[in-house]
């Protein structure tokens, strides 16, 4: 089976982000999406530590320790960008002003529950950051993740076994095998991305798929 690479998943997500969208890209895998946003579209990136209009990484020697992203990496500000404090930054999320956020996940349930903040392991030190605010706040929540764990278990599940980040908050899932929409009728396959049949995709997925759109 030929699965998409992580870069290819990022490319596929970027393709679906429209002109004029205000977007937050979560820490980790979703950050890669910024590398593939079509140059002809004006898309405004939000970073929860307090900026809109985030630009790419600075060239060597141009880093500014006061200009960082949510992953604490140096970034730049585009013309038209703005800085603001934390309460405003999270008002942008919670108040429904962000069009899209893209998050990584350990698991997503058929009903759109998201688990991405804590493994629940007894020795794990929990950390949540802005994940729960993003999950409930953005108007559309996209998840990007591998379809299965390294040991071959589906990350799309009936009920999350990891502690949840938000309930019924995910709208669409991008994996290395497919794009799936979370709908009231269940998970609908929007697009198969690997060289597999619907039946094979169903085989790799931990819940019954509701059909194709």
């Amino acid at each position: 089976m030929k699965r998409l690479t992580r870069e290819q998943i990022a490319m596929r997500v970027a393709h679906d982000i429209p002109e004029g969208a205000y977007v937050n890209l979560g820490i980790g895998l979703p950050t890669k999406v910024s590398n593939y946003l079509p140059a002809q579209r004006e898309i405004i990136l939000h970073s929860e530590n307090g900026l809109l209009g985030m630009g790419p990484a600075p060239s060597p020697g141009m880093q500014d320790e006061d200009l960082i992203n949510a992953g604490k990496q140096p970034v730049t500000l585009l013309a038209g960008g703005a800085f603001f404090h934390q309460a405003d930054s999270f008002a942008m999320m919670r108040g429904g002003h962000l069009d899209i956020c893209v998050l990584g996940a350990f698991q997503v349930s058929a009903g759109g529950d998201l688990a991405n903040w804590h493994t629940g392991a007894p020795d794990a030190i929990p950390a949540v950051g802005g994940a729960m605010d993003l999950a409930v706040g953005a108007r559309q929540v996209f998840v990007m993740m591998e379809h299965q764990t390294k040991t071959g278990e589906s990350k799309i599940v009936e009920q999350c076994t990891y502690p949840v980040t938000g309930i019924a908050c995910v709208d669409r899932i991008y994996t290395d095998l497919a794009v799936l929409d979370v709908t009231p009728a269940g998970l609908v396959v929007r697009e198969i991305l690997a060289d597999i049949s619907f039946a094979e995709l169903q085989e790799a997925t931990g819940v019954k798929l509701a059909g194709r759109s």
Partner: protein
Amino acid sequence: MINKIFASPQAAVADIHDGATVMIGGFGNAGMPLALINALIDQGARELTVVNNNAGNGDTGLAALLQAKRVRKIICSFPRQVDSHAFDALYRAGQIELELTPQGNLAERIRAAGAGIGGFFTPTAYGTLLAEGKETRVIDGRHYVFETPIHADFALIKAHCGDRWGNLVYRKTARNFGPIMATAAKCTIAQVARVAELGELDPEVVVTPGIFVKRVVPPAPGQEMQP
């Protein structure tokens, strides 16, 4: 004449008492008031409750305050990081209490304290471990969780410029928690990179009006930023 300029970080933090709740600005190292934290370590106050987004990075600033065993409890959103070894060691040894709160709830709880709000209902964290035991309510068909304000005795923040009335402007993403923490503490102490003359800061761009600030600490001699 009002003059909130303090001669030194040491003078500005001298009255922070044992058991105080201290908000410390910054997101990672951006906006962290290093001179004030170092002065607080030297001052020696113990059993502190610290409010910060993180729980220290590396071995300086908040991490050094933790390593000096001055912090009884930390309220934060994202303690675990690649360089949070100072916190990790204390936490695993059971030597520090952690109140984990989602970042937006942390911000809004601080804002609520500063604005005199007794609490608020937020959709964030509904149905999760971080809402366990908290009051919930359905408003217009949506589930919300009740969150309470976080007040502090002191806030230690970093701004770019300040004047003798305490008006502040910030620099880039170092602004982060500064403006809201300034409102939520009985005594806000701002470390600035430059002291401005009264009237020099454009009133249209002042971010924190001086009413929220009690003390302004200039940079050490030779460390001033140019206007």
